[in-house]
């Protein structure tokens, strides 16, 4: 197990390094001079050169990449030369908004999706099962930004039930929650569908397995069988699925944050790419890539631990 862990972690590291280098190369081939954009129309060529030097853009690219990783080892993501704040501070200032958003979307989706799937599995082939099946697939396929647009249109513009913009009054918990509702729905709704289908499928599989049948044969109450044995086994795959789905979640968060003018790492990435604020692009992409790699690794590990065939070969 330990060796597997080690392998998985080092693979993750290699991927992060590779990904960041790739992005570095892409970004530096992009036309558009950040110094020029950031300084605005009245900048003289000297000012532009000065800012480029501050950003380290005047050095060869290989040098910049090495420096970036060198600083990274010391926990330093560099400085945003515009506001003169450490990039880490900016990124970690925005990250909680996205984590809250993703987290509440997923928790909400689990609270609705798992019971739905469970109920469908237990009432297989009833009209409810079929109906929820169709709705689930419809939910899965709905792109987050379309759901976001509709919820903005209906609940914010027409009904005015929920606020539409921003993340709410800082320090005001309830205000922040009410700002979270619509964006979380936009991201979570496809996961409701996804999880309910997944739970249904794995429930059916588990229910067919020997020990469950044995438990039933021994006359254990149906509820105990379902909730103590079957559901527990059926829910575990959802955990791993969420890990793998982190990429989708981050992409969905990006769209949603744009539609709702919400702070967060997705909007930070979008804004910093369009303004060519390289240090912030690198920092925010690095952090989200790490989140993604970690969550896939964790879900792989859980998977490995769950699947005896893999576990035994470790």
């Amino acid at each position, binding site marked *: 197990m330990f060796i597997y862990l080690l392998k998985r972690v080092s693979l993750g590291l290699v991927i992060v390094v590779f990904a960041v280098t790739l992005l570095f190369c892409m970004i530096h081939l992009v036309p558009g001079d950040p110094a020029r954009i950031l300084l605005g129309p009245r900048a003289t060529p*000297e000012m532009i050169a000065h800012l480029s030097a501050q950003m380290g853009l005047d050095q060869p690219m290989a040098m910049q990449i090495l420096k970036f990783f060198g600083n990274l080892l010391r926990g330093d993501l560099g400085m945003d030369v515009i506001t003169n704040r450490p990039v880490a501070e900016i990124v970690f200032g925005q990250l909680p908004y996205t984590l809250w958003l993703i987290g509440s979307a997923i928790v909400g989706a689990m609270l609705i999706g798992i019971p739905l799937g469970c109920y469908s599995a237990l009432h297989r082939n009833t009209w409810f099962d079929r109906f929820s099946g169709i709705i689930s697939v419809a939910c899965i396929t709905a792109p987050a930004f379309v759901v976001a647009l509709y919820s903005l249109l209906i609940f914010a513009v027409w009904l005015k039930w929920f606020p539409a913009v921003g993340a709410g009054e*800082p320090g005001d918990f309830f205000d922040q929650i009410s700002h979270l509702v619509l964006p979380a729905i936009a991201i979570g709704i496809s996961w409701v569908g996804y999880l309910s289908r997944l739970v249904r499928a794995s429930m059916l599989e588990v229910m067919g397995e020997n020990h469950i049948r044995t438990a039933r044969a021994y006359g254990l109450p149906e509820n105990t069988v379902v909730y103590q044995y079957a559901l527990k086994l059926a829910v575990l795959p959802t955990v791993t699925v969420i890990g793998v789905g982190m990429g989708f979640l981050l992409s969905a968060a990006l769209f949603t944050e744009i539609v709702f003018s919400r702070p967060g790492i997705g909007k930070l990435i979008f804004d910093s790419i369009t303004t060519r604020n390289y240090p912030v692009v690198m920092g925010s992409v690095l952090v989200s890539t790490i989140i993604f790699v970690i969550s896939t690794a964790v879900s792989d590990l859980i998977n490995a631990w769950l699947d005896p065939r893999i576990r035994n070969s470790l």
Partner: protein
Amino acid sequence: MTSSNISKQEPDGLSRRHFLKTTGALGMVAAASSASEVIFADGKKILKVRAYSDLRSMDPAFSQGVVDEEIHSCVYSKLIQYKPGRKWDYVLDAAESIEQASPTTIKFKLKAGIMFSNGYGEMTAEDVQFSYQRIIDENLKSTNKPDWGSLQEVTVDGKYEGTIVFSAPYPPAWNIALPYIVGNIVSKKAWQEAGGKVDTSTPCESGPYLHAEWQPKQRTVLRRNPQWHGGSAEFDEIHILPIDDENSAQIAYEAGDLDYTRVSLGAVGELKSNMPSHTVLEEYPSLFYVWVGMNVENETMANQNLRKAIQHAIDVPSIMQASYFGAAAPSTGIIAPGLTGNRAQGLVPPGANFAKAKEYLAAAGYADGVTVTLDVLNKAANVTTAQVIQATCAQVGITVDVNLHESGAFWSLGDSSSGERYKDIQLILNRYSMAPDPSYATAWFVTSQKGVWNWERFSDAEFDKLESAAKAEVDASKRDTMYQRMQDIMEDSGAYRFLTHEATPVVYSDAIKPAFRPDGLPLFRYFGQG
């Protein structure tokens, strides 16, 4: 910037406002109609306003324009401030008196007893000298240096008296320097202690409000300055929320999250027929100028007849309808009405003239048609404008191929220091911001700006001469004529089709009494309660 400023949270626990907000969220409908009162939280009067971007710097030398200035003008003092209203004028702020003593000198006397916060003492002429001279100091590399024009020095004539000395007459000082970004007066002592410049926090203030906190991408909080020399500010706090999208801002306004916001031109018609309760809509003209530029050095566009054909093929009234919903008017040039140098009429009328366009096209040797590219920044109004241009040009046989760019790529298109792309520009839809002095508009189109901001690569000896002469012209009516002539030259070259100055529609709750510059930019320090 220290992290303490960011992590500072309001320790107000479960206040009445919390309770109201919560029931609003749960009861859902209640919140919508409550927009009519200034928000009281813990008995505090709070003004909530929208800015279109986030704070960039608290240092006037590195202010990034309008949004930073909206904050600076609340927390710093200037000798004079813009006067709220429909006509450009100024009012005294820190100055007790100020006058143009000679074409190259301005004499001022400060009010006595203006105190800087945080114990930095009284404001003296030495602070004014420091604040102005640091902007033009080469070593500081202030991005706002050009605003001071020919400023040479500020002499200190007494504790409160001083003289601003220019090397050549500089009339724009009254319009875009003294009452604007570079006119902010900071404390010499505080700035020197901070190492000569500050970032996103400020060591001390002297205006009606103090810079209390900044939460990046979330809000800037200004708090009443108890020792302000002008009396007591109207609000306990001003919350400035950065919301870049105007539609989102309007939705936030309608939800009661804001007391004031600029709205999009597209919203004006709908608002007029369906005004939210307790809301006032006002329309101000704006100073922005939008035009289609044509690159005179491009192989295809070097043909002046082709440029003139395009001038006549673009139908400005259709663009006003489609992109600006009839809420903006066609422009005659780059200098807006109300400013010195505005032309009553352009050479090419706003409406398209297809017959003329075809004549020019035939003269250009393209009787059978031609294909040109139009580079556009991918903002909604621009994309719509581009498509209208595409459609009307098609009627005379000019095929327009639209290239969209996101802001990063767009703003470096014509920059000759970053690659060769500037050569490929044919048509470009452009929009520049503007300060209330004509010199600010013409400065970008001189020969030396070729490949910097002059993307048409337009070059005219008479224009260049007029540009430098008009800046220093003291006689207002001569100045007026000079700027008008310069726009004639631009238009006659065929390199420009002027579209509009846009407009600034704003909405605000009738619980507040706002104050605006003639171009609709908010002057928060003068905002009051309704």
